[in-house]
């Protein structure tokens, strides 16, 4: 039997408008559909039933379904940056000029070489990969893995950046109803009448779900409900919005398609809704199940509901002679619909009796109905050509045959329970209706411990939820295998999971091999692991497993449903967070100046700090050397604005800071500065910085750049949660001030050139003091502190005037060769001076004592954060690695992080170690490599040689030395 036109019926089509023709391309062919077509209906209208190849065996496949559950008809859609793989033909609306590419086939959909797997299929059973690619081991990396990788994955990942915009939005409602069918709309109306704020989400572009297709008066009933809801202020109706996942405390994620069908509209393509609902109603309907009979995957075998949908919604006749095969009454609707369109129909009913309203209506229309009958086998390979009939209660002995071009199958319906299950709602097996449905006694719970999700309508197992529109129906008879006692050769051709090619025999094999858990069977056979996540295969699969294990279905249970319901693109999840909006970049007041002057940036947290300022023709290394020499010889400026600045004030502020820092801050005189160390309760160093006492009850604490928010939070934590009776207030003023370090022997001369009220002379402002006043007309506080070892002033001014001061300094210092320097010059200079850097010399396991900073630990204080932990035995262990300088024996810089080896090997056969390099640079000041590191007994081993083996096999040698490489006597500090 051949598949012949016309495929589009002469009239009808609820969702199409024939007046608007839409051209599109499919694998290079130019085709036409009409407005309102999905890709699937448009292709069917063109006689194209073959729409894909299965993943494993590359079997030819047509569409099975008409909605989100479709496993076969997946395409690569669009071109360039808009290319998307695995788009479902049944839910994607056709748009003008659309470009469709078939997947998982080569060289073409019609002539696919991978189909050889189909002939090999007896050799590729469940677990084939697990069993085959284990031995011999060396084959894995070079043979097996590359082969598997090449054949893995369905569809091709796009390579170009996505040109579309995406966004997200929050919504807060009393009730969200998921599903705009009759049950959802009624539930929404009831809640709206109570005055609740209601949001209704519908995944399709049209409202009503199955009701308008299944019931003559359905469209009118839906229209009435919509009119009622639209008139209400407290109801929002949102179409094209797919609820993808339900999470804790009533948090629902949904994707709204705004311009999927019109990429040039200039508006966001999709919007991710983050919905907070007090209560959720799932009215998500039910999905029809296939029947397991031999060759139930031949193109032309479709779900009965899909055949009906294509007829009613798109006026598509998928074939001219239709065999409906069913175990329930609902499928008779398809028979009646097809007959009404003049198609030839026969019904095969597995049940011994079929006397409900619908079967009787079918007989009344002279539709042949064969009861107690099943399909032994579908004939045809690339398209259905007919069916071989048999008794359902038998082993498949042929009892006759029917020529046909479409098989419309119905194995019953499964409620869509995904959202209900996503955050803990339990299911129960309803034996009478042969389905898992939500257990109303064990719903997902909200923050108050009460159930917050209710399932209604078909989603709750009530398949006849259209109320007075319904007709009496007889019970569904579970059919998990057709015929019941089918032999192996038939079972080996019964598909359960179409996309991943899992058959009845695969699940039975898994059971025989001991996979008793449904979760294990899923992974072993890949049942339900494809992009459709087993929407139509799940129940059939676990029913087969239960039969094989000879146990009831509830005992087997079901696999866990997890979000998302249908795939969500990464672009939608990222929403607006891309490009410059990817993350907040923190910029100082001088950021643009740095940019204009060619700064190469270093990310420090969210800040961007100038790493160095390479000039034209200069590489970063020579720029850094130039900057350092300028500071050492004349004067340079560093943007230090990112350093944390926290005000601590109150009668108990001194006492509090004595707890925060290892050294004494309460004794710091007003007007002076002190370097302080901060540890955690575990004793390890967490931050450092200079503290200035501003007044009797006020201190200003500088933190590292990355530490400002963390240290402020740390202080508030102790104040709020431990010493809440202490009178201390803190404020994080990091962003209030721009801070500029002016460093170098000419620093004082430079500042003297600017007008101002602050005397920066050695006598008026000695090292480790601060002064307040104005400079260049700007209110300022100047700290005499130095991280470079040079004469240095750090000037803090209101951030809004930071750039002004920076400019004034550079104007005034032009003839001095004033040079902006970046973080790397700062790092090298501090290393030349042997100053530690949090994050270089520390790594969360280092205590101040390791770094020779014992002087900064108060012996007088009875307590500080970390004190107790620092007295643990291993903290006092004299073999802890300690800070020393390390000088290379030749002119090579030892790599940062290099380990110094010791004699002997450890339990793993590795060389023992006795130290490591924590900072390592070429010093332009000394014109030789310098390094710091932590070495066992280091300070007692001055002059000894360490060996650092390199990955190349070469061994670098270096001598232990004092960590202060430059100006040991500190004479440069005062200029």
């Amino acid at each position, binding site marked *: 039997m051949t598949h012949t036109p016309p495929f589009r019926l002469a009239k009808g089509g609820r969702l199409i408008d024939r007046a608007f023709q839409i051209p599109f391309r499919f694998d290079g062919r130019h085709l036409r559909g009409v407005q309102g077509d999905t890709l699937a209906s448009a292709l069917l209208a063109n006689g194209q039933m073959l729409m894909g190849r299965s993943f494993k065996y590359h079997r030819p496949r047509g569409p099975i379904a008409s909605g989100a559950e479709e496993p076969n008809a997946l395409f690569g859609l669009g071109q360039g940056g808009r290319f998307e793989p695995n788009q479902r033909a049944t839910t994607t609306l056709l748009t003008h000029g659309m470009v469709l590419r078939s997947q998982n086939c080569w060289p073409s959909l019609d002539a696919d070489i991978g189909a050889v797997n189909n002939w090999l299929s007896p050799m590729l059973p469940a677990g084939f990969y697990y069993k085959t690619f284990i031995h011999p081991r060396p084959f894995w990396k070079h043979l097996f893995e590359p082969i598997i990788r090449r054949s893995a994955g369905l569809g091709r990942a796009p390579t170009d950046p996505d040109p579309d*915009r995406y*966004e*997200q*939005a*929050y*919504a*807060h409602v009393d009730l969200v109803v998921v599903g705009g069918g009759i049950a959802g709309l009624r539930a929404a109306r009831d809640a709206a009448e109570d005055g609740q*704020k209601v949001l209704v989400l519908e995944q399709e572009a049209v409202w009503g779900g199955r009701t308008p297709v299944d019931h003559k008066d359905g469209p009118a009933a839906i229209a009435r409900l919509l009119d009622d809801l639209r008139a209400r202020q407290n109801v*929002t*109706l*949102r*179409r094209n919005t797919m609820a993808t996942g339900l999470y804790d405390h009533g948090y629902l994620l949904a994707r709204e398609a*705004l311009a999927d069908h019109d990429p040039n*509209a*200039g*508006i*966001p393509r999709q919007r991710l809704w*983050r919905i*907070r609902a007090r209560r959720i109603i799932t009215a998500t309907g039910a999905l029809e199940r296939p029947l397991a009979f031999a060759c139930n995957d031949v193109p032309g075998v479709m779900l009965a509901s899909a055949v009906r949908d294509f007829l009613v919604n798109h006026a598509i006749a998928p074939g001219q002679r239709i065999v409906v095969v069913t175990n329930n009454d609902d499928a008779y609707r398809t028979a009646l619909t097809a007959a009404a369109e003049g198609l030839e129909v026969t019904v095969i009913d597995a049940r011994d009796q079929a006397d409900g309203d619908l079967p009787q209506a079918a007989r009344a229309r002279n539709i042949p109905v064969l009861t107690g009958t099943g399909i032994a086998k579908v004939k045809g390979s690339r398209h259905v050509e007919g069916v071989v009939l048999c008794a359902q209660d038998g082993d498949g002995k042929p009892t006759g045959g029917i020529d046909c071009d479409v098989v419309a199958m119905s194995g019953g319906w499964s409620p869509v329970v995904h959202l209900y299950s996503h955050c803990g709602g339990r299911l129960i097996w309803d034996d009478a209706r042969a389905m898992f449905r939500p257990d109303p006694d064990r719903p997902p719970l909200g923050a108050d411990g009460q159930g917050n999700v209710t399932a209604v309508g078909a989603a709750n197992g009530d398949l006849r939820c259209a109320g007075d529109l319904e007709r009496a129906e007889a019970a569904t008879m579970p059919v998990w295998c057709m015929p019941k006692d089918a032999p192996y050769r038939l079972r080996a051709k019964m598909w359960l999971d179409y996309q991943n090619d899992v058959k009845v025999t695969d699940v039975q094999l898994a059971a025989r091999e001991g996979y008793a858990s449904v979760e294990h069977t899923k992974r072993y056979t890949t049942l339900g692991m494809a992009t459709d996540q087993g929407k139509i295969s799940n129940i059939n699969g676990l029913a087969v497993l239960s039969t094989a294990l000879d146990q009831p279905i509830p005992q087997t249970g079901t696999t866990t449903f997890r979000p998302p319901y249908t795939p969500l693109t990464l672009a939608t999840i990222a929403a*607006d*967070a891309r490009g*410059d*909006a990817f*993350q*907040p*970049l*923190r*910029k*100082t*007041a001088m950021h643009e100046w740095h940019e204009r002057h060619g700064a190469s940036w270093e990310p420090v947290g*969210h*800040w961007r700090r100038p790493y160095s300022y390479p000039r034209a023709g200069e590489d970063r290394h020579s720029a850094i050397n130039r900057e350092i020499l300028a500071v050492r010889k004349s004067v340079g400026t560093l943007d230090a604005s990112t350093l944390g600045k926290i*005000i601590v*004030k*109150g*009668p108990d502020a001194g006492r509090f800071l004595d707890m925060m820092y290892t050294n004494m801050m309460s004794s710091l005189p007003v007007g002076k500065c002190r370097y302080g160390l901060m540890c955690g309760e575990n004793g390890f160093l967490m931050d450092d910085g200079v503290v200035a006492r501003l007044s009797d009850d006020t201190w200003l604490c500088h933190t590292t750049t990355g530490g400002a928010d963390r240290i402020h939070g740390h202080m508030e934590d102790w104040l709020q949660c431990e010493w809440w009776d202490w*009178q201390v*207030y*803190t*404020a994080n*003023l*990091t*962003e*209030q*001030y721009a801070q500029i370090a002016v460093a170098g022997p000419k620093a004082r001369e430079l500042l003297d050139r600017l007008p101002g009220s602050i005397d920066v002379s050695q006598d008026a402002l000695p090292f480790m003091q601060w002064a307040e006043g104005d400079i260049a007309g700007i209110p300022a506080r100047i700290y005499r502190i130095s991280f470079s070892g040079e004469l240095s002033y750090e000037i803090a001014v*209101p*951030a*809004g005037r930071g750039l002004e001061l920076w400019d004034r300094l550079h104007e005034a210092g032009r003839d001095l060769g004033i040079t902006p320097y970046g973080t790397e010059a700062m790092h090298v200079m501090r290393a030349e001076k042997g100053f530690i850097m949090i994050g270089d010399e520390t790594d969360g396991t280092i205590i101040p004592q390791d770094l020779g900073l014992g002087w900064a630990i108060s012996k007088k204080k009875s307590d500080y954060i970390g004190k107790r932990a620092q007295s643990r035995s291993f903290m006092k262990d004299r073999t802890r690695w300690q800070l020393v300088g390390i000088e290379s024996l030749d002119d090579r810089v030892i790599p940062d992080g290099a380990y110094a080896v010791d004699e002997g090997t450890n339990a793993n056969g590795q060389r023992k170690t006795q130290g490591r390099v924590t900072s390592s640079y070429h010093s332009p000041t000394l014109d030789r490599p310098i390094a710091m590191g932590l070495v066992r007994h280091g300070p007692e081993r001055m002059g000894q040689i360490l060996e650092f083996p390199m990955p190349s096999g070469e061994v670098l040698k270096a001598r232990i030395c004092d960590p202060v490489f430059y100006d040991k006597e500190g004479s440069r500090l005062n200029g």
Partner: protein
Amino acid sequence: MAEALASVVRVEGLGMIAIRADLSRAGDAIAGAAGLAIPDVTRHTTDGSRTLGWMSPDELLLILPAQELPEALSALDQALTGEHALVVDVSDARAVFDVLGPHAGDVIAKLSPADLDALPSDGLRRSRAAQTAVALWRIEGGMRLIGFRSTADYLGLILRNAAIPGSRLAPR
């Protein structure tokens, strides 16, 4: 081309003072010096020119024209003499944006998990806009947000992105 949902305007010229104190004890003194009543929890008070916002159980934010700042600082300092309190100028640490237009609420709803329907006319909500902290409240014709100075470019960008033409939240 449709219009943007709202206009996004960076507001300059505002002074801001953070005040930390025991509000039950020092409230009257602060109110006197600020010239505004102490706001209730998560509310603000305003006279059209100055705004006093509740930030935390022991923290208020006074927003006022920049030229009034020095005087207000010393008034507060004076009023709180002898009181355990912290009064600091934070004007330069902040960036202020107005989002103006009938759909300003849509712009905020795209960026912040705060429920604007639950925000009273004098409500002040501290929350976040995408990845940065903000405080927001209603002003005539729209919303005002304060964020941090260092991320002002980011805040401006995400607000403008959220306001792009044709992206209203009402179903189409």
